């Protein structure tokens, strides 16, 4: 009995609660990135390698707008809009010519885009990380920590954006087009849905969501040109674990993986905690290659 109670006392309850909050916050950011990625994949079979770079560019544009206007919220909106336009242009210029070719070409082309964008950012903004100040600086007490309200706000805002996006998919005309095209591209085209326009629109939407998450996340870590790769990797893991093209699954997987990583950092170094999500991925591939959060295929 003694051993059991000793073991129970050894569990750091306060740390676990703190890390639960942290995990949910990063999970929501990740969900925001991954839902754009999974949508782009679901509708046009494109694995967007440049998604992390859109996230990174979004953060940089946020830095620029804040430097000139001082308003974080204006930065969030402008950055999303600019990156959405950039995304649409990229889709038209590079992905549209590849429609009908082997989908592997799209991963190559988006990889090329990510290279160009990343080096553009390095060239233009330099290697030193930029910082965005938190728009609200108040905090509340969580055990022995002063926990910033801003982090909670990130989670809420991300949830709001994803929720708004879901409503858009469910009720707007363009959303219905998107869902129809996802289900059956050829039939949708036959019904008069402008499929090429839907493709471009979806890419722009995904890009805007990546940019928004970039701006939201920037105050926590600072902005540099390599931040994209880490996040796109995580988003890839999330998308595979959640089931490619499955929006709900991606969100669940994002929170699940972020929570696991957050708990892992209680015991190991954060750079090693990434391995936890790799292990989840391996287990998923072994036992449920279609994704953890999708019904078992019959």
């Amino acid at each position, binding site marked *: 009995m003694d051993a059991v109670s000793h073991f129970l006392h050894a569990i750091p309850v306060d740390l676990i609660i703190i890390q639960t909050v942290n995990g949910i916050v990063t999970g929501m950011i990740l969900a925001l990135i991954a839902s754009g990625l999974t949508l782009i994949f679901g509708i046009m079979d494109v*694995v967007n390698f440049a998604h992390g770079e859109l996230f990174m560019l979004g953060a940089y544009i946020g830095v620029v707008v804040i430097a000139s206007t001082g308003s974080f919220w204006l930065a969030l909106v402008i950055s999303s809009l600019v990156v959405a336009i950039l995304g649409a242009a990229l889709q038209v210029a590079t992905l549209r010519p590849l429609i009908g070719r082997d989908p592997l*070409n799209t*991963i190559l*082309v988006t990889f090329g*885009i990510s*290279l*160009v964008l*990343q080096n553009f950012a390095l*060239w233009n903004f330099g290697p030193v990380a930029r910082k965005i100040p938190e728009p609200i600086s108040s905090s509340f007490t969580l055990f022995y920590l002063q926990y910033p309200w801003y982090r909670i706000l990130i989670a809420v805002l991300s949830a709001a954006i994803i929720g708004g996006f879901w409503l858009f998919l469910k009720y707007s005309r363009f959303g219905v087009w998107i869902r129809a095209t996802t289900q059956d591209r050829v039939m949708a085209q036959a019904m008069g849905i402008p499929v090429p326009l839907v493709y471009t629109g979806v890419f722009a939407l995904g890009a805007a969501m990546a940019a928004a998450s970039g701006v939201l996340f920037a105050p926590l870590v600072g902005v540099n040109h390599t931040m994209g790769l880490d996040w796109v990797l995580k988003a890839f893991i999330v998308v595979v674990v959640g089931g490619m093209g499955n929006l709900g699954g991606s969100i669940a997987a994002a929170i699940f993986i972020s929570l696991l990583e957050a708990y892992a950092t209680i015991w190991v170094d954060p750079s090693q905690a990434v391995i936890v999500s*790799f292990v989840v991925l391996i287990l998923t591939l072994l036992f449920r290659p279609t994704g953890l959060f999708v019904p078992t295929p019959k």
Partner: protein
Amino acid sequence: MTTAPLDKTMPLGRVKLSHTAVFWIGFCAVMAVLIVAPLVLPEFWRRFLTEILIWGLLAMSSDLLIGYTGMISFGHSAFFGLGMYGAAAALLIVSPANLWLAILFGLAGAAAAALFVAYFSTRLRDIYFAITTLIFSQIFYVIIFTWTPVTGGENGLIFTRPHLSIPFLYDARFTSSTMHWFVLAIVAASYLFLRRVTQSPFGMVLQSIRENEARTRAIGYPVQLYKIVAVMLSGLFAGLAGVLYAVQNQFAAPDFVYFITSGDTVIFNVLGGIGTLVGPIVGAGFFQLMRELLSRLFGDQFPYLIPLGLVFIVMIIFLPQGLLGFARRWLNR
């Protein structure tokens, strides 16, 4: 090598030469140029050419997957890096340092990584394969980067170059020329071996997997087994490239296990032409030359990857066959 006749024989003057003869004449001509090169080139370009050959070997190994099996690997840095660290282990632990032991250790390291990656990622196809190889290479990167006591962490490992020794025959320090010839011999042997593999029945099955995986499976071939062997083979040659790079530069660094190396490998392949085996070497040469040229013209800080990335994108859209794509059928006969 520049002309690509598709008919069985090629008129050369009045004599008609068979495809095999033309191939070997071309091969010998290129080899002759590469053998003579270090005697004419200044020190810098000698090393430059050697490095191109090493990168070419890495790219060629990945061509077996991209060009012949239809699987894009974004994880070749793992095999390359494990080869590097395997060689480093042999050179640091065993004394006196032995070249062949370094190669053996490097190959063992790469094989272990390749077995691990192959077992899991061949369960998936297309983009899923690409993503999982990328993620697996990151696992190795994180391990190597954080396991400082063994791998030297961020700083990597530094060691001295072993002697070029052939038991009972030859034993001398590497000069930049002998290094070049040694690398050239290994790359040429690897090319001939891989070429033979792609033309063997095994290679034919790989190509049929590329063309139509479902049908290959339906005929009765154990597709996953073939893919595992392909990934392992490819990983071994990537590891060999890693060993050569380690011996040439006398260090092993985590940067080379990072994704950038895998990305470069894919770029070499696409630029040079997938499914040709020599194309990736040409691609590596083109890439490194452009990089050198751009940084000489515009200074070291010039982001050479922006123009090269644009070239890469344009090539995929308009010239997916790559620079040597026109010779693809001829080279594979």
